[in-house]
């Protein structure tokens, strides 16, 4: 595989309809098998759900809790199907991971009122100071009311590096939200609106104890998700709608031109009025 091939694969994934993500990824891997690991690591896919039968709780699957063909549950810390020496976080990090899962469980309920969340941490950082990375995942599926089927997938990947003094840390967040909404009805036929947006953020924040990381990460993810939610609203329901209306106009184009010119005259008149000195 060449760098160029990976670039082309990623470019292709940005152009092909996201409605076919899973099939496209499978096909890409079949086409250039050596790219498999790189693709799975760089291309976000809709999150799949598995059940932790021992803890009787659902969890989300992604590349970050995968080892070979097995996935680790954040609730029991065990792999399914079981494997020898599956990669797990260090005991110190596992405690933090448990705390994160609790905290984000509450976050998820407050914002999503349902759905599933999972947090996976892994060790990183040099010998000089503590560092780790994590993935915070959330999935919510709509109830299909009014014939609209929708689903939301959040994938937040965070990198944390404590400064050598240990009083603060540097946080780097890359977030992707996938949003899918499909509707079939008599008047509009099929309307399938889907895809994802990605954003990044970085910050330094104070650290007093290990739990500070949960606070700092939580605040960062919350701010980021609110931001992306707002952008999704603008892009999905504003921008793409505008583009549809640019290919065909509901208002007769001649009337539109007349309206535009009337508006122009109006604004010019207001401007001139404002410019006149008061007598």
């Amino acid at each position, binding site marked *: 595989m060449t760098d160029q091939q990976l670039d082309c694969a990623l470019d292709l*994934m940005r152009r092909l309809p996201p409605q076919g993500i899973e099939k496209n990824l499978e096909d890409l891997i079949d086409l250039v098998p050596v790219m498999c690991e790189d693709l799975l690591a760089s291309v976000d896919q809709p999150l799949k759900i598995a059940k932790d039968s021992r803890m009787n709780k659902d969890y989300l699957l992604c590349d970050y809790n995968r080892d070979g063909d097995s996935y680790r549950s954040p609730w029991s810390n065990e792999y399914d199907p079981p494997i020898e020496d599956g990669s797990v976080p260090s005991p110190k990090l596992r405690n933090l991971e448990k705390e994160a899962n*609790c905290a984000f469980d509450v976050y998820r309920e407050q914002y999503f009122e349902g759905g599933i969340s999972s947090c996976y941490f892994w060790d990183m950082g040099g010998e000089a100071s503590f560092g780790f990375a994590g993935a915070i995942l959330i999935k919510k599926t709509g109830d299909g009311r*009014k014939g609209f089927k929708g689903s939301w997938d959040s994938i937040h990947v965070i990198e944390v590096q404590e400064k050598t003094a240990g009083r603060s840390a540097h946080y780097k967040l890359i977030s992707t939200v996938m949003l899918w909404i499909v509707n079939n009805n008599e008047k*509009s036929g099929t309307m399938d609106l889907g895809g*994802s947006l990605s954003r990044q953020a970085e910050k330094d924040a104070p650290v007093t104890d290990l739990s500070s990381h949960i606070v700092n990460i939580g605040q960062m993810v*919350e701010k980021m998700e*609110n931001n992306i939610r707002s952008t999704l609203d603008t892009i*999905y329901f504003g921008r793409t709608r505008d583009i549809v209306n640019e290919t065909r106009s509901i208002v007769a184009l001649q009337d539109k031109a007349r309206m535009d010119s009337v508006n122009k005259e109006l604004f010019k008149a207001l401007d001139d009025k404002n410019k006149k000195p008061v007598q």
Partner: protein
Amino acid sequence: MDVTPEERVRIATDFIKAAPPGEFKEVVSDVRILLGDDSLLSKASGVFYEYATDQFTTVDLPDGERALVTKYGHIADNTFFDPRSRKSFKYDYLKNEARDVAELEESPGDEEKWRAAVDSALKPYLDECFPNHYSAVYGRVEGGEVVITVCLEDHKYNPSNFWNGKWLSRWELAFSESEGTEGVMKGMMNVKVHYYEDGNVQLLSNKTVEDRVPISTPGSVAEKLVGIIRKFEVEYQMAINENYTSMSNTTFKALRRNLPVTQSLIDWHKLHGLQVGKDIMNR
């Protein structure tokens, strides 16, 4: 286990078929490098015809006429014709260019009076509703019936701002020329939008409809047909716009709230005290 060359060609074909409006060249270029074998790309090139004709690809003839590449205008190989100007042309799929333009030798048949009437009645409607339209009205006789096929296209490409959009619709009326009968009209409307700044968002939408048109004179049938096209297209576009409002106000809100019920951001310091999550971990 490696995939077979046939499977590689299938994958290349599927990718190219799915290229969003205005991005055919970029997708083919990516596929070419991923395939790494131009002989396989040649085998996949049958998909170029399929893609171009399915998408009602627009092409400007050297003398400025606007033409569409469709299966209704296909003569042979990569030769197509434009029914309005009665010119044939060779089409280059990768360059999106027309060359070797020539007059059609065959004279039009009886269906031409119907075709021309529809083409003529369509123009003011297109000028009113489509900012940059391309259209082609084809006429043929099949099984004793006249078949008029209307192909409409309008697109807006803005790759420097990472978006492209396209509307296409096809209206086919089949009828026998006797006055007092009804013709069957089948219509298809299709909208595709791609937005790709820091992401990949696409709208795929389509709708099929049917109706009947009473047959009398070419002029009258043409007016009625355009009236029906207008009715269906306005209804479809309005429904899309209404859906957008519903999606934003209902579906999206139900997926994730703007803010928690408390109407304020979460107090992450307080979360440690909450038992809810902890219970799950301590089982």
